[in-house]
């Protein structure tokens, strides 16, 4: 559904752009295509890594084990697992839901989801290539600390 909206936006954009300048539209499409092709290799690598993660750290295993770990240790483990793994959203949220039902605290579930979204260990090499190593280290480091703060606040407010 949402994909359709994005497609409509792109097609409408190209039509509007084409009307105003064919030259510029060609240039835009070339830029888009070049970026897309540059994306392909890292994308295949990352998708491949995700596949391996799903096998060696299956969502069911994560749900079963993070659910047990009570207290700060459990929360910290969840934050670490969230930071190093890369799980697509359509798997992550159901997983977090079952984590919660399995008895994990709000803090643990929040730590997991927050580091999962904010910190990207697996994507760091690619981020580094596009935006530099210093930027990547700072952003991910501070994001990890923030995730712990967010998890704590959420645990206090929601349980």
């Amino acid at each position: 559904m949402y994909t359709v909206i994005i497609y409509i936006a792109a097609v409408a954009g190209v039509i509007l752009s084409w009307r105003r300048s064919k030259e510029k539209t060609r240039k835009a499409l070339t830029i888009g295509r070049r970026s897309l092709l540059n994306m392909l290799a890292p994308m295949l690598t990352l998708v491949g890594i995700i596949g391996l993660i799903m096998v060696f750290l299956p969502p069911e295993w994560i749900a079963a084990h993070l659910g047990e770990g009570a207290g700060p240790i459990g929360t910290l483990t969840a934050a670490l697992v969230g930071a190093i793994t890369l799980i697509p959203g359509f798997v992550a949220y159901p997983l977090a839901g079952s984590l919660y039902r399995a008895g994990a605290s709000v803090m643990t579930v929040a730590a997991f989801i927050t580091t999962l979204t904010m910190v990207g260990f697996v994507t760091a090499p690619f981020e580094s290539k596009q935006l530099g190593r210093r930027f990547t280290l700072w952003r991910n480091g501070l994001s990890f600390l923030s995730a712990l703060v967010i998890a704590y606040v959420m645990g206090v407010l929601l349980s």
Partner: protein
Amino acid sequence: MLVLAYGLLGILMPAQALKAVSTVGRNFKEVAFILPPVFVLMGLLDVWVPKETVELHLGHTSGLRGVLLSILLAAAAAGPIYVAFPIAATLLRKGTRLLNIVVFLTAWAAAHLPMIIVEMRFLGLPFALLRTGLTLIMGVAIGAIMERMAVTIEPGR
């Protein structure tokens, strides 16, 4: 190396290898579909939006409006976080300040509208809203700290 890993997996644990490959296939389809329009839009942005405009709305004097615009741009986009890196690099080249780059990346990862709906379904409305709100606030804080520490961006290193 990845190919080697998959080869080994295929020989040693065929069942797991099959599972990994099917995950890869599903994931690839998911991402491959969303990429072309996102990059077409990025190309259009690159060509049509002049540097001055980006600087004005996302640059050093853009203030709160710049932050909100960064969030809006990222929330409306789609695709995994690694798609956002080249787009962030484009925005940066056009004069976006570092704080807004960080906010853009944080919002891209944490505040996609369709994903928030999924999150609401599995974790409830209070959880989803609170997490999204706190994450965005922290994104601004991280960006501010990084600007204060004069973190520079040197692509390719």
